[in-house]
């Protein structure tokens, strides 16, 4: 991995949400460790899939990268500029290059604004073009995301979920960004519409050379679109590799379990395969387990896992994993 084609570099990113008690004299009694030390690079033009169960900190990771949450510690470099140290003004300028598409297509559009105003807002905020230019641009963007440009005067509540998500995409594209965080853009949509939106995102990526951080809670959703995939568990990345490597040579017990839940197309293989059902609930991120965070649910956990947090290491070139017993997982779980 050469450094100069890296667009986003995340180093030991930590985001803790304080838990406070008391009304007048608030004191911190703990923290939700939503993101607890994640590091990865995203290369120009690629899609990095970020996968994990609900509540593991995917959204928080995405938002913290964009500095929508102030990180507790760690660094985020965008085009080699440290976002965590950047001034308000620099950050505002940089926001033209990095955008986000949201998880909930109903909450992400202001119900009191027309579609035209929603999509033109980024242009207004950055003072781009005359009002006439902006109107033209909005129509162009609507066409680009497969919506009828006639709809500029309509309000969000008059659209379906899939259409709303397209509006969200158009807004994100308005500033012609290089990098877009796609925060579960399809999870809230009907299965029949999911493929359309993913295809749209792929087409746009090809046309405009976009770089994506594509978040999803299930491997089947990112399989198609990602170049590389990172698997997250309770605020940490447990495994990261090229897509085909991750699917072909899964190392971490948690990834193996997740993968065993992805339905296969071939029924014969489906029957043959071992399904691993994880027992127990996801522990609370306010009080994560000691050592390896997965040890409470890991089928091959040993004493050492409770004591010692496994290092996130490069097991083979380009294939990172955080587990003490990679070989054992290969023998016992496959």
């Amino acid at each position: 991995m050469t450094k100069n084609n890296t667009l986003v570099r995340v180093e030991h990113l930590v985001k803790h949400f304080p838990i406070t008690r008391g009304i007048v004299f608030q004191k911190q009694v703990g923290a939700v460790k939503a993101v607890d030390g994640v590091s990865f690079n995203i290369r120009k033009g690629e899609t990095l899939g970020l996968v994990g169960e609900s509540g593991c900190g995917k959204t928080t990771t995405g938002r913290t990268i964009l500095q929508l949450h102030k990180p507790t510690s760690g660094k985020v470099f965008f085009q080699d500029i440290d976002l965590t140290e950047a001034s308000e003004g620099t950050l505002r300028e940089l926001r033209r290059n990095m955008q986000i598409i949201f998880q909930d297509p109903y909450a992400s559009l202001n119900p009191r604004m027309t579609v035209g105003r929603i999509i033109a807002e980024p242009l207004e905020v950055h003072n781009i073009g005359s009002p006439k230019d902006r109107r033209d641009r909005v129509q162009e963007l609507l066409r680009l995301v497969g919506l009828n440009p006639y709809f500029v005067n309509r309000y969000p509540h008059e659209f379906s979920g899939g259409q709303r998500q397209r509006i969200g995409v158009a807004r994100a594209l308005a500033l012609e960004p290089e990098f877009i965080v796609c925060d579960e853009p399809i999870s809230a949509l009907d299965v029949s519409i999911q493929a359309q939106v993913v295809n749209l995102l792929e087409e746009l990526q090809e046309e405009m050379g976009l770089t994506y951080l594509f978040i999803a809670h299930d491997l089947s959703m990112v399989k198609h679109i990602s170049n590389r995939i990172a698997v997250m568990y309770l605020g940490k990345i447990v495994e990261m590799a090229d897509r085909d490597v991750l699917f072909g040579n899964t190392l971490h017990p948690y990834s193996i379990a997740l993968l065993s839940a992805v339905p296969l197309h071939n029924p014969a293989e489906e029957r043959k395969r071992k399904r691993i059902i994880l027992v127990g609930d996801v522990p609370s991120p306010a009080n994560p387990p000691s050592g390896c965070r997965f040890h409470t649910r890991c089928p091959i956990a040993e004493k050492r896992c409770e004591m010692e947090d496994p290092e996130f290491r490069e097991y083979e070139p380009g294939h990172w994993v955080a587990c003490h017993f990679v070989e054992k997982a290969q023998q016992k779980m496959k």
Partner: protein
Amino acid sequence: MSPEKEMEQLVNKKTGKEYGRGRSPAQDAFREFRRNKIAVAGVIFVTLVVLVAIFAPVFTPYSFAQQNRYSNRQKAFTGYDITTDFAEENCHWYNTPLEWGCTFYIAGSDPLGRDLWSRLIYGARVSLAVAFVASSVSLIIGMIYGTISGYAGGKVDMIMMRIVDFLYSVPLLPIIIMMTVYFKALARRGVTTGFMGTLIVLNRATGGLFFVFIAIGALNWLGMARQARGQVLSYKEKEFVEAARAIGAKDGHIMMKHLLPNVIGPLLIIESLQIPGYIFLEATLSFIGLGVDPPTPSWGAMINEGYGGIKSNPHLVLFPGIALALTTLAFNFMGDGLRDAFDARLRGRK
């Protein structure tokens, strides 16, 4: 379904009219509102009262302060007992088709011989001024305070809200009554200079209403601030606000373009439901002599003036009472209708 198909469904095939033009949430609510007959009746009545109040001189034969000591305590619907000279000099309706009204008591007269009908109509001005000015004052102060507090969050929010809590725990009405008594005493002494003097002059210019506005505003912005903060908090976490931050919008922009337009609707409804209370509070203050200054007619003050002789002259209490009741009822219907209309929209939406 293909996106093209989805889009076609939004087109009204029969008229083709809806095509490309959306209806805002407010427009939806307005449609809902129009279906509610009682609420519409309330609006019509309020509109009538507003028109009558604005054009009060047209609707009244005499000025509200015009005394006629030869025909005091007249019953309603009785003829005048006044000289042509008096009518010619003081009656707005003289030499008009309504000239008969100059010598006819529509609602009787009070112990000072003032035409009660004229005073009732002018009294509407007071009630409406209170309804609109006091509610605007409370809405604007409360909304700005609550929006800032809710948006800022953290320590700022904590301090701002504790101030509201503190003021809530202070019995404000007695304090305001005491302050008003103090101001009125100063006014009687003829103080016109300094800060107090300015207030007193302002108060006199508004016929004693200025203190009423202050009293009602001071009492009610607290509740409005809490409501506004609550609304802002619920919207602040919404993803569209996050989206605005993601495109680099500044705090002011987010508050003005994203938060206020969303919170103002519910707040207006809450405020409109308070209006009858304001009208009553003014009536109460005027009734105990702390509201408008004589001879400004307020329905509350009129009831106060009339209730001593309620047995012999019930009309002096009855008419202002009816006016007060009908107006507050109309405002109530209107507010309820607004709330239902917006709730219905919320219920129907995902």
